[in-house]
């Protein structure tokens, strides 16, 4: 009889630990998702100033700048918690266009010598790096929850308490994966 009670206590203990671990993983994922959101907002705040300053120098890139502004407005409208896939898609597109913008900036030496513009570009680079870091943290949390939800025995508990993986990986688009030599801008 005692053995039965001990077995039951051990099973309950394991159940509880797995339950706690699952909840922690889900919360960590939510926290990391909001971390991406914070960084994306920083980027949205930077873009208008950057475009206004660049407009004085980059007259031939008007369409590119308009596209960036449009993508920014569209991305801002999408709520991360409602449609994360759409949010990631738009932000990947925005990243690509911003990379194109950085490359185009190479052809404008006057703009490169402007200190305010340099500072703005440095800030943009720093924000982009923070977005990349937040994305890596988010993806690692997606993997952790995905493993917990799919691998036995935690998968069993996940099903029982209704935890499922409803957040996608934040994957960079193929074009965005190509490294951009930002150092060139600061030469």
């Amino acid at each position, binding site marked *: 009889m005692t053995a039965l009670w001990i077995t039951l206590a051990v099973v309950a203990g394991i159940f509880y630990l797995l339950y706690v671990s699952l909840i922690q993983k889900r919360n960590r994922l939510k926290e990391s998702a909001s971390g991406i959101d914070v*960084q994306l907002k920083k980027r949205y705040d930077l873009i208008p100033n950057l475009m206004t300053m660049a407009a004085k120098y980059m007259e031939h890139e008007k369409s590119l700048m308009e596209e960036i502004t449009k993508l920014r407005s569209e991305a801002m409208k999408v709520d991360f918690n409602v449609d994360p896939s759409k949010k990631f898609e738009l932000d990947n597109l925005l990243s690509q266009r911003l990379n194109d913008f950085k490359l185009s900036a190479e052809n404008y030496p006057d703009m490169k010598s402007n200190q305010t513009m340099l500072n703005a570009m440095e800030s943009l680079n720093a924000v982009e*790096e923070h977005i990349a870091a937040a994305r890596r943290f988010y993806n690692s949390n997606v993997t952790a929850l995905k493993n917990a939800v799919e691998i036995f025995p935690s998968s069993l508990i996940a099903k029982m308490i209704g935890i499922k993986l409803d957040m996608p990986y934040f994957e960079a688009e193929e074009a965005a994966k190509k490294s951009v030599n930002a150092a060139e801008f600061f030469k």
Partner: protein
Amino acid sequence: MQSENRNIDELKSGFETFYQSRILPIMQDMEKVRQKYLRYFILACCLAIVAIPLLMCGIFYFQLGASIAEQNSSSFADSAIYGLVVLIITICATPIALYKKKSKSKIMPLILQYFEGFNYQYKKTISSVNINDTRLIGFYDGREGDDYFEGVYKNVPIKVSEEKFTQRKLVYRNNKPHYENVEVFHGVLILLDMNKNFSGQTVVLQDKGFLNVFSKVSRDLKGLSNVKLEDSVFEKEFEVFASDQVEARYLLTTAFMERMLKLRAAYHADSVEFSFLNNQLFIALKTKENMFEATSIFKSCLDKKMVEEAFMQIVSIFAIIDILSLDKRIGL
């Protein structure tokens, strides 16, 4: 030519001319000083050879007389022999230590003149950072600096010091307890300015497998959580702890992790550990090797091998800036 504009290969190739024109004439003078101190050393050793048997005889004679009077005299004899050994070692080592101080204070600043704008100080430690805050050294009671130099290489401010940390531990010898200073770290500490701004702390420690538990306790990693990174090779080599998970990934980009692995492979140190704090990078290279020894009382000053070795050690420290690309604000 400013050293900060020269790359490592240029630094190496230009050193021979610098050695011939600036270092060699001083070394010729130093050779006379070395010979003088070597004579003191030989004299001290000769005195020790004569004094040891005489003093030993004296102790045993005293012990024999005392053992008749009281039984516990052996402890006095033990202490006397121990004290005698320490005294003789001190007498013999004094000329070596004096020469080391004199030669280093002269030669090291001279070698560093080649890099322009570097200051050298004998027996100094990196004091601008609280070493406990870096969490790279475990518990310690004693800290001793050997060589210290600071300057700017490729626009990156750098401070370097060879340091030894000891901890007072209770040890038993002949079943008798006594305290002894045990070395917990010996190696080179390097403080560099980072090319990124950050507010938290990220510590990268050597992965010691199941021994990680002990290193976590001794480093006092309170407030830092384990960071699991996607680079499996890096994960095998290092354990990362950070106050901010996102910031840790901001600092440890995949490219930076690769560079850190390259650095680990390039230095034949026992361990290489990093601490990112206050926009600075603190590196602890643990090694048994005594670094920056440009001269020795037992080797001729005219033999340039030791100077070259010390020069190469300095260059290899500066190469860290190149390996980690700290001179570039590319954000990778």
